[in-house]
Structures are given as C-alpha cells and as structure tokens.
C-alpha cells in the first residue's frame, strides 16, 4: 500500500499550510462542516477506526459516549508519545502537523467541543514549535478561531507541554496533568467521555487516530474499512526499531505481516546474526518468537497470537540480546515511571527490578524465579490503570519463553552471553 498519512512527509516544507493546501488540505474540514455533527460520528463509527494509541478502542464509539447534554466539552489529543519503541506521532506532528489540526477541528465539531488541547511530551520541544507555528498559520487563514469558514463553528486548539512522565500517556493521568496536578490515573468509571477534563465530557484521542479522521470524511467509511483486514481498517503507522538495519516509521495497511515489517521494511538483523524475539507493540506487550511472525500486524491477529499490537512499536532483538538484561532494562524503566499511586505497582516494580538486577549480576537463586512470577502476578490486574499489567509483562513473557536463560544465569553465576555481545554495537545505518 502506498503511504497516505505519511505520503509527503519527506518532502521539503511539508509542514507548511501552503504545502498542505496544495495537497488537498482542509477539504475534509469543509466537507465535515457541511454535515451534521451526528453524521460525522456515524461516519467514523461506520469506518471502524480504532484508536491508535494502544488499546484499539473504536473511536466512533468513544465520541458517541461523550455526554452531549453537558457544556463545555473537550477534545484532548494525547501526544505524550512515551511507550518505549514508539515514534510515529512525532513524525506526524513534525512533518504533517496540519493533518492533526484538521483532525482535531473535525473531532471538536463532531462532539460539540469548542476547545482542543494537544498534550505533548516535554521532550518534543522542537516538535511543539512546529505544531504551534502550524496552529498560528491555521488561525491566520480562518481554519481555526471564530466562525470557521463561515460556518458559525468556533474552535480553539492549544498545545500543552508535559514535563517528563510516562504515566501522563494514560488518559485519566493525562487529564490530571492538564489540570495542573501530578500525572496519576483516576479510578474508572466514570470514563472521560462522561467526566473528563475539569469534570466535563471529554474525548481523549491519540495523534494518529485524529490524523485518520480527515481521510474518513473525505474518502468515506466504506473505502476506509476496505483498507486492511476486517475490523482493522485504515492505514497504520509502524515504528520499527531495535536490531534492524533500517529502523524507521513505515506506513501500510494492517494486511502487512510482522515478518515483512521486520525483514523487508526494517531490513532484518545484522549480517551473521539471527532474530531472537520481537516485541510487536511497545515494551508493555508480550514477546513473539521468530516463528510467530507470519501473521498480519493487525490488532486482532496479534492479539490472537498472544500479544498486542499496542502502539505498533516493533522492537526486533537478535541473538546478542540477553533476555534477563532486557527484562532488567525494562523494569528499570517501569520502576522509574511508576506514578506511585497504587501500592502493588509502586513497590512491586522496585522489587522486580532489584531481583532482576541480582540475577543479571549472577547473584540470583532458583527460588527468585518463582518470586518474580509471584510478584509480577500480584501487580497485574491490581492497579488503577494498565501500567501494572504493562510492568509485569516483560518479566512474565521473558520467563515464559526464556526461562532457561534465567536458570543459566543462576547456575553459572553470571550472564551467559559474551560480554562483547551484550547491547554493545550500534546497528542502524544512516
């Protein structure tokens, strides 16, 4: 499939309004404003668009659930792209920011919101500049602000910069952060569609999700659903990284297989190395083994194979990767990022990291393996948000597929891979 969302991202000035207008920009907004808001929601529902942030929840349903009796309502765009291995929204915002702005405006019109906040992670400072400049341009030509294109519809978009918290990517934690508090999740229900930002009905959507909306309005729900397998329609951005020759963002339909993404698009592993494992959806999802990759990289197919598509962050790992080290690396991440609200996660991630560190150093005991399993099982499903399950996953999945590596660490009292192998050499050729 030819790229759609990223068709022009590598051309100069692709981020400017003039470039965007030359390529059919804001036509979808015009078309949307000629319809009724409910028609837009029905259209998005019919298209089957599923959220691109990780959960794959149908966007049209989310918008329908927004309580239309309460004013004001909000669209909040989740641009806090922090899942390890994910860098697709970054590309969209930096090289095609007007697509996101158009998607936000259509979303606001559909749910009857007048304000959209784009919550961008603090580390994307250069992206924020591009986005804010694009928003200014859009105001200047009447695509944002009061009485947009003479339709009587008002819409303001503001960029809100985060300050370094992975947990802010969780939708209710993001709302807390936007309200000027710590990014810690709320108890659900009520979901943001009923009680969201400032207690008002709110739709929280990922950047890539909103970028798909203009396509649906322009080309129709039927066309959109026909791109890709049933219930997994539309173009999808995949982030391929790790031990591949050509890491990058690749756009395709969800017919493409994980193997094609790793070996054809990503260029496969280095000369003389073999593929050991693939994480198909960011660090929070279970590992797939090399013989499990001949499946479509769709939400449903990856779930059927025992993992999740998540944010479509595909991390390939070759035979130089020690899986105990991998679990330790990821638990360092989760320990650091745990927001501290729920005890099982706050304490458990620390315990897991320390035990993994001990095993990786060669000071572990066999019973530590059961202890890991036990602690991980006592975090997953026992926290307010999905972070707990995410933090337990790297431990459980490496124990499941690579228990022998853990045992070898304990038995031999050291990491069993040659020191010169372990995560030492740059791979990507740029």
């Amino acid at each position, binding site marked *: 499939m030819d790229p759609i969302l990223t068709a022009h991202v590598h051309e*100069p000035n692709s981020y400017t309004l003039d470039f965007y207008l030359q390529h059919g920009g804001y036509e979808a907004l015009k078309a949307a404003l000629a319809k009724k808001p409910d028609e837009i929601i029905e259209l998005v529902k019919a298209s089957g668009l599923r959220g691109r942030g990780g959960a794959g929840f149908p966007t049209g349903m989310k918008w329908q659930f927004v309580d239309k009796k309460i004013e004001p309502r909000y669209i909040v765009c989740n641009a806090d792209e922090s899942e390890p291995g994910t860098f697709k929204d970054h590309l969209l915002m930096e090289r095609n920011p007007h697509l996101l702005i158009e998607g936000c405006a259509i979303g606001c019109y559909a749910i009857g919101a007048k304000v959209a906040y784009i919550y961008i992670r603090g580390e994307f400072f250069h992206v924020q500049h591009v986005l804010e400049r694009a928003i200014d341009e859009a105001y200047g030509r009447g695509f944002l602000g009061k009485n947009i294109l003479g339709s009587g519809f008002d819409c303001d978009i503001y960029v809100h910069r985060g300050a370094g918290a992975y947990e802010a990517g969780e939708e209710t934690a993001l709302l807390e952060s936007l309200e000027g508090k710590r*990014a810690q999740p709320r108890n659900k229900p009520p979901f943001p569609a009923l009680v969201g930002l400032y207690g008002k009905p709110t739709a929280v959507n990922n950047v890539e999700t909103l970028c798909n909306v203009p396509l649906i309005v322009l080309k129709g729900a039927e066309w959109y659903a026909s791109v890709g397998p049933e219930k997994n329609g539309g173009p999808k951005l995949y982030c391929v990284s790790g031990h591949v020759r050509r890491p990058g963002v690749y756009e395709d339909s969800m017919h493409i297989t994980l193997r094609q993404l790793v070996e054809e698009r990503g260029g496969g592993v280095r000369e003389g190395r073999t593929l050991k494992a693939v994480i198909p959806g960011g660090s929070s999802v279970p590992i797939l083994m090399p013989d499990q990759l001949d499946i479509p990289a769709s939400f449903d197919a990856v779930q059927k194979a025992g993992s999740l598509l998540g944010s479509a962050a595909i991390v390939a790992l070759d035979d130089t990767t020690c899986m105990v080290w991998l679990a330790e690396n990821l638990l360092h991440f989760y320990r650091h990022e745990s927001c501290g609200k729920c005890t099982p996660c706050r304490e458990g991630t620390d315990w897991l990291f320390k035990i993994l560190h001990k095993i990786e150093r060669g000071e572990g005991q066999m019973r530590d393996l059961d*202890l890991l399993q036990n602690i991980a099982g*006592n975090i997953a499903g026992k926290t307010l948000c999905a972070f707990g399950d995410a933090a337990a996953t790297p431990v459980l999945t490496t124990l499941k597929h690579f228990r022998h590596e853990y045992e070898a660490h304990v038995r031999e009292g050291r990491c069993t891979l040659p020191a010169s192998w372990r*995560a030492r050499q740059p791979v990507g050729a740029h």
Partner: protein
Amino acid sequence: MSFHPKMAYDATFHRSSRQLEDEGPPFAYTPENRARFDAIITRYPPDQRRSAVLPALYLAQHQQGYITANAIRHVAALLGITRADVEDVVSYYTMFYTRPVGKFVINVCRTLSCAVNGAERVTEALRETLRIAPGETDAAGTFTLVEVECLGACDRAPVVMVNDAWHESLRPEDVPKLIDDLRARGEAALSGCHHVVEGKSR
C-alpha cells in the same frame, strides 16, 4: 509464606531526597516572562488557572536555571494555589530541576531501543570524557549528565537530548568531539532531529 523479598530501602530509590532546601534569591518573573505567562493563562478556563502550572514552572526554570522555593512561591501566588500544590508538581515531573544544573544538561536515553544500540557505552564515554557520574554536574558548571528513559527517537538510537535539543545516532567514539563542539559552538553542535534537518536542507 511471605512474598516480601529482603531488601534495603535505600535513599537513592525513594524520592524523599528531592527536598527544596534552596530558598534561592527573591524571585519574580521578568516583564517578558510575565507577559508570556499572561498570554498562557488565557488558554485555560478562568476558574482553572492551576492548569498553567507546568508552563509557569517552565518559565521560571528558563529564567533562573532551576526551581527554587521562592520561584514556587511566586508561581503559587500567580495561580492562586498553595505552595504545596506547586511543589507536588515540581517533585513529580523529571524535567524540573531543584538544584543548579550545568549550562548543558546531557540526557542519555537508556531504554530498550537505545540500549540495544549501545547507549550504555555512550554513557560510559560521557563519564570518561566529562569525569562525572550520571546525576552530577562538572566543577565548572558546564555539563550535567543524566540518564533518562525513552525519548521517543528509537529510529535514531542511541539518542541524547541536550537541554531541549536532540542529538541522534551518537556513537561512543564520537562523544569527545561532541563535547568539544558543544564547548566551542554551543547547541549548534547538535545534529537536531533528522525531520527538522530534512525540512531545511532541501
């Protein structure tokens, strides 16, 4: 059976060490920053001034280099919330500094995709070149070295962020040259994000 492993809870893990001992000099926004603040506050509903706490803190940090107790007081007064509310936020988010930092804060991404591409060695090279450990600032106050979690640039691993700008695909052997360049040319020495570079070069 107890599930509780025997472990020392050391001060390095718990964030209780992040106290604001530093009152700092008297703090108020410069007129420019006050104007910026007044513009930012209009983005939020009038009864939700607290929403502006992150941008308000960024302004204070850019003005003074780090967040002091006096800066917290100023921000709290402007937003109509308590000092504790502001300190709560400052102590949670990693991008706010409560101690003076170097002119260049070098953040090395240490998470998976960067790690499998040699981020550990980049950190080692930085330690050797700067003669400081992660978390420390050199004696001249020029460089601070920090290890951070995923920066979202996994296709150009290993990536480092210097202040607010990126430097991509940094190899350990290139570290001494980068440090020299930073001293000589400042942030112009950085590669920047490759998307920005693509946009400018053609």
